[in-house]
């Protein structure tokens, strides 16, 4: 897994790529929780994620809950079937705001 954070005028973009699993999800969690602390809008770009296990999803859930408490917009960007299927199975596709592209996400109101 690799990740990066880009600051743009309309929000912070946290991009992940590769596989997010039990080994590296703690790093993803730490980074997400950090960004949620100081951002007003967080775009989590998962389009380059090839696999995400439950620990990765749990990290997203925790960060999202933290964001909601502090009125930070928290938006996922993903078209990966591997990620979407796992979200759907836990019915989290009904919880998260998910866009197909970063452009769509940035133009939508949150």
């Amino acid at each position, binding site marked *: 897994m690799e990740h990066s954070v880009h600051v743009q005028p309309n929000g912070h973009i946290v991009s992940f790529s590769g596989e997010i*699993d*039990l080994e590296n*999800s*703690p790093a993803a*969690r730490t980074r997400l929780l950090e960004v949620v602390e100081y951002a007003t809008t967080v775009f989590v770009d998962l389009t380059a994620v090839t696999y995400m*296990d*439950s*620990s990765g*999803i*749990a*990290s997203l*859930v*925790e960060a999202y809950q933290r964001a909601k408490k502090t009125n930070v917009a928290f938006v996922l960007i993903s078209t990966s079937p*591997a990620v979407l*299927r*796992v979200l*759907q*199975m*836990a*019915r*989290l596709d009904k919880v998260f705001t998910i866009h197909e592209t970063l452009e769509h996400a940035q133009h939508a109101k949150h």
Partner: protein
Amino acid sequence: MIPVIEVKDVVTHYGSRKILNHVNVDIQPGEIMVVMGGSGSGKSTLLRHLIGLERVSAGSIRLLDQDIGHMSHHELTRFYRKLGVAFQGGALFSSMTVGENIMLPLREHTNLDEKTMAIMVRMKLEVVNLAGFEHLMPSELSGGMLKRAAFARAVIMDPALLFCDEPSAGLDPVVSSSLDELILQLRDALNMTIVVVTHELDSAFRIADRITVLDKGEVLTIGSVDQVRASTHTRIQDLLNRRFEETILDPDEYLARLTGESI
């Protein structure tokens, strides 16, 4: 495609008794393989070999391209992270809550944050339709709920391989059918390769991509549901016919089983 499970020429002896006799089975990634057979067919022994509880007398078993017969105890323990096992009776610890039981593999094999583990447990409880049951003790669950909780624990680490021992045994048809749905859902969502050992034919036909039929320690056939149904092999037909005998066996007894009241 390289099989994720390779059972090669496996022979098992208990003393002078031969339990498995040159068994060969290959299972492909994402496949649901049902292993069927009557009592004494060797299906439970095969399962114990597959999950590393028992060594083979001869032959080999490769899981995810690794020969588990040559692994040390330490290697096998690490390898278990990739396997999930839903045992027949649930095998939950009675002194722990349902949530603690499900979290146990995470505590043993990972260093995840407590909050992450708690969310993972609740997510899996949602998946198996036991949301809100995490603080109950196993003794407070019904048979079907125990099986669901066992599934939640088996898949808490998102294993590549899931082994299920008689998931439908002792359950009424409605609960049994919902567990079958759960198995299909787990495969589709998490892309697991799943091996189900069962003698329940209805369940086998609902979930199987392929079926391995064992009889007296030998593989009678391996094929799709249609191929097994169409088999003219006498022993396979005996096995299939028993299904219909069981289905119409005794309506009163069946009704009593469903209602919990005898007539």
